[in-house]
């Protein structure tokens, strides 16, 4: 494999990791606050649809992005209301969101656009285009570093950069701010937070809103950056892989990034490997496509060790006995 091929795979890795990373960080906020979120997939899908639909109608990627975020935050609040205020089972609330999103997006898509649930293909203004970083062209001549900067780092959608900037931002928020301190505490021992005079539910809602926001970015990435328009089930289980990555990363931002990069790399390699031959037999495309998912299971089952999540995760907070 030559250098160009390696750079190309790594470049694809970045692109494919981005929605995973956004969703993974989204889940991190919610789960660190003690609200298990199995509904990342549904929120992403709803955001992808919202973004695709609005971008198609208005012709503006930015309005599409805003719509995606809006839809996702609204969905997150619905899920939050069930899981926090109404003290419902958090897993069921998440599953419900996933089912609702899957059904409703296709239904509304068909009603509005009559293209079998898809949204119309977007024109150049309807979707984000890639950004060339400053001096990318000029520096590309420098050996090794040049191509890495020009080909690998430069030339991505803005959401890719946002996703990776969110990693240090999340780490800073989590470990250096009052909000982060309280967020971590409420996921570990909400009673301690309550007795300290801080509202447990308010904190959890704030976390859930951030989750919605990041899921909105991830969903919009599918339909108006990577793709051009919403397609049925276009998130394809990435929300669950993000959840797996979150557990694998033990709910920490930096490990979350590396885990998402690993999963993204598997995905990129999978595309590259299609059509590969083993002992002169062509490996079925489905088997190769399944690789990232199989590896997800293997990693989670075998290599993770003991993953202890936030202690109060999954339990609605009830004050009175």
């Amino acid at each position, binding site marked *: 494999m030559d250098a160009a091929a390696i750079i190309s795979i790594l470049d694809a890795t970045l692109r494919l990791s981005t929605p995973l990373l956004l969703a993974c960080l989204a889940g991190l906020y919610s789960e660190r606050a003690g609200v298990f979120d199995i509904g990342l997939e549904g929120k992403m899908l709803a955001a992808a649809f919202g973004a695709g639909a609005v971008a198609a109608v208005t012709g503006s990627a930015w309005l599409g992005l805003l719509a995606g975020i809006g839809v996702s935050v609204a969905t997150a609040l619905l899920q939050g209301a069930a899981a926090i205020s109404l003290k419902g089972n958090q897993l069921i609330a998440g599953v419900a969101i996933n089912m609702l999103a899957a059904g409703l997006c296709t239904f509304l898509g068909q009603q509005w656009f009559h293209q079998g649930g898809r949204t119309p293909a977007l024109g150049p203004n309807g979707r984000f285009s890639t950004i060339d970083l400053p001096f990318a062209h000029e520096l590309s001549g420098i050996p090794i570093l040049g191509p890495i900067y020009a080909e690998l780092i430069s030339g991505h959608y803005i959401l890719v950069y946002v996703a990776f900037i969110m990693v240090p931002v999340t780490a800073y928020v989590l470990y*250096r701010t009052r909000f982060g301190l309280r967020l971590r505490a409420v996921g570990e021992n909400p*009673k301690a937070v309550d*007795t*300290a005079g*801080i509202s447990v539910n308010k904190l959890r809602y704030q976390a859930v809103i951030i989750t919605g926001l990041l899921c909105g970015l991830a969903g919009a990435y599918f339909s108006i950056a990577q793709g051009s328009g919403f397609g049925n089930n276009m998130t394809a289980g990435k929300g669950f892989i993000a959840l797996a990555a979150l557990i694998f990363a033990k709910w920490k931002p930096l490990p979350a990034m590396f885990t998402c990069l690993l999963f993204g790399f598997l995905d990129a390699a999978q595309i590259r490997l299609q059509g590969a031959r083993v002992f002169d037999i062509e490996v079925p495309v489905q088997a190769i496509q399944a690789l990232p998912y199989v590896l997800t299971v293997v990693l989670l089952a075998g290599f993770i060790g003991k993953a202890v999540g936030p202690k109060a995760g999954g339990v609605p907070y009830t*004050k009175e006995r």
Partner: protein
Amino acid sequence: MSDTPPPIKQRPETAAASAPASGWAIELEQINKRFGAVQANKDIDLKVGRGTIHGIVGENGAGKSTLMSILYGFYTADSGTIRVNGTRQAITDSRHALALGIGMVHQHFMLVDNFSVLENVVLGAEDSGFIRTSLDRARSELDRLEREYELEVDPDALIEEISVGQQQRVEILKALYRGAEILILDEPTGVLTPKEADDLFRVLRTLREQGKTVIMITHKLREIMAITDAVSVMRQGEMVATLKTAETNAGEIAELMVGRHVLLDVSKGPATPGEKRLEVKDLVVKDDMGITRVKSISFSVRAGEIVGIAGVSGNGQSELLEAVTGMRDQHGGQVILNGQALSLKGDDGAARARMAGLAHVPEDRQRMGLVTDFSEWENAILGYSTRPEYGAGPILDIAAAKAKAAEQIERFDVRPADINLKTALFSGGNQQKIVLAREMDRDPEVLVVGQPTRGVDIGAIEFIHNQIIKMRDAGKAILLVSVELDEIRSLADRILVMFDGQIVGEADPATATEGQLGLMMAGVVEERSTT
């Protein structure tokens, strides 16, 4: 139960009569709080003088913790008024209580285990959105507080890495850091070693010297006498009396707590042992790790006698109990009931033991004796639900089950007498009575009892002991396992001492001294003798 309890004398509320020179820190009037069917606080009046240490005593479930949670704003009272430093306040939440200078150290610490001491102190009292400055300020402030009150603790240590005593110091520091002038401690010594408790008392005295007010909830009379200036006694949700500690004594407080004269010794006649009911022969039991915990034990229990097994906890008593009652497989030997060997192997061993007439009051009522999320009546038929009196076939006769439960509640004086209440909401003593009622009600030939009064309040202890003796007098064979030597000595007719999985000696409770038994429990014994 014996005859009607003698009325307790009502004392004038001496301590409440005159305000101290420094005034009242806390005045509660007519506080009421109800949880479902349970009236946790009923018309409570309480006054606490500023700069004093005020004890609040009462049995489990008397409503002490609820009252303090109301003062701290964790619960809201249904009615009543609260005055802090003479000003009427409606304390709506903990933040408000903190602002009024009221800090609380809860019985179960409100700490985040994987946070550092410093982070725990700062949580909720941060100066700004970024915690760096708060942590720095807290570090120097803690340093000062630690020197002032001799509360040394490493600010950078994680909570999960420090001792329980130190965790409690963190809780106290948390309150002081927030400027608490009134400090409430809920059962502060329950989790402490005696040495740690002494340290705590030293700290509390220093706090008093500095003009702070301390309210301490406890049910240990020794502590009340040792450290408080005044003491308020609660019973069944009501405030019974407030006394100056110097003008009362432990006996009087105990009486007020229980509501009648406390029998310190159990009165029982001599045993009249009959034939062998339960025989254990060469029993060997291994624990879950495969370690042999019961090493070939043999003994027997006759009708009409109580055999007590004494020993330091962890010497195989639990495994012995579980094997005899069919909860754990035996790895050798026999359990013989009424001359017939019991087959206890398999998952339904316990059920078969019950069918054969062996009732079991397990050591840990919450884990093994009850399903705490179930209502009282459901618990009252646990293990007996397939009996014909509860309906034929698969359909349960709920009316019959409820009637039976109501009858048991009445006979065993379970409070509150509510068969539909979740058992988790009963106090420890009443939970134990529910288990006891269920097991004794079937008129078993043999009763096996583990730790009958662990975590049970004084009044219930007396009742439970009397019930056990009544069973004996009715000609039943009773095997009693307890780590409370006093309990064994006052109840048992014969004492077997267990050490390291073996019975190392037998003693007559009438003649054996505590010292002799203690030596046996420590494994110091001349020659091994078994029955």
